[in-house]
Each structure stands twice: as C-alpha cells, then as structure tokens.
C-alpha cells in the first residue's frame, strides 16, 4: 500500500469554526489531491497540488484553501466550517498527473 496517512480520521466540529485536515505521504509523489465524497456525487476534486507551493482549484473549491510547504504534506483548511461541508474527505497522490492515484483512508468530518 502507498504510504498515505490522513489526520484526524474523524472530527466533529461546530459551524463557524476553522478546521485543518492533514495529508502526509512517504512516496515522494509530485501530485497530491483533496476530494470530498458525498452520496450521489461520487468523488469531487476540491484542490490539487503539482509541486511544493504549486496548487490549483478543483470543481468544488469554494470555502476551502490548501497549502503545501513540503513535498510530503498537503493541508486542507476550512476557514469557517458550514454544515454543507459535512463529508468524507480523501487525500490522493500520484507520480504523474495522468497516472494512477493512490488514496488515503479518509477523514469523516461532521459540522454541527
């Protein structure tokens, strides 16, 4: 299995609070991604990174920001969490942009 960890694995928070999710990889892959998974929507890309300090938006980026200061870490921040951001968040990595993606175990976030 690819070395990808996500923390925390579960989080319950309140509306309006900031939340940061962390993705850590030990594979030295160039590309990292954040997705959210919701019933009926499959996986939707939030943000992705193609190198240190190089990031771009996905299809559902509103309300989210990311940072990548090191190859191995990709942070997803919800500046002010809303109930619509209750979801399961997955991090993924790939060596090339068109290559297989390897997924982390997911973080279940509940915003009350």
């Amino acid at each position, binding site marked *: 299995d690819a070395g990808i960890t996500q923390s925390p694995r579960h989080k319950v928070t309140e509306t309006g609070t900031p939340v940061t999710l962390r993705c850590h990889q030990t594979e030295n892959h160039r590309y990292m991604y954040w997705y959210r998974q919701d019933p009926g929507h499959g*996986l939707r890309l939030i943000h992705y990174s193609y190198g240190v300090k190089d990031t771009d938006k996905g299809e559902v980026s509103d309300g989210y920001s990311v940072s990548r200061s090191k190859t191995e870490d990709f942070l997803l921040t919800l500046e002010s969490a809303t109930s619509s951001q209750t979801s399961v968040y997955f991090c993924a990595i790939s060596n*090339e942009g068109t290559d297989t993606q390897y997924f982390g175990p997911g973080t279940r976030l509940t915003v009350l």
Partner: protein
Amino acid sequence: AQSVTQLDSQVPVFEEAPVELRCNYSSSVSVYLFWYVQYPNQGLQLLLKYLSGSTLVESINGFEAEFNKSQTSFHLRKPSVHISDTAEYFCAVIPTGGYQKVTFGTGTKLQVIP
C-alpha cells in the same frame, strides 16, 4: 471538459453469477480510463486501467474491462462474482495530453447475494 456516466447506482447479483458494471464517458480529446474499487470504510484503490494497446484489460482478481472508442464506453465485467466483491466501483477518465483534472463517475454499488 469530460464527463463520466455510471447509470446504475446499485447492482445486486447472486454469488457465482456474472456481472457487468457500465461506464460511458464524454470527451473531446483522447482519454485514459480507470476503474477504482472502494471497500467499506476504506479509500479507493485501482482495479484496472486502460492507457494504450489492447483494448481489453484485466485485473488480478478476475475483473476485465474493454475500451470501446466508438461507443465511448469502458464497461467492467466479471464472469463469476464472490461475496468479497461487494464494494462500490468508480469509473474515471483523464485526458492523455498533459495533466488535467481526473473526472470520476458517481459510482456503482455491487451487492453480491449469497
């Protein structure tokens, strides 16, 4: 831009019966195609992929998929399913020409009935 359609959200099938999970895509450029599988409470993992060459690709656990360019399809099949195949299956595409964002289908839940 590209899109992926998985028309069947759920597919129940009896153990040892054959199954086909359908995937159709739309794209104005050439694409690579993937099937990922997600077991309960886990992340997605690659099942098989088509990049080039033979249009029939196989996985190590008996699944196969055939790329049909004229019908823009990449259906997943298995001749005899097992209880352990119960999972959700996602079709995905990405353009071949440099990095662009991968597009996933909405998933098909395969339920194998004993």
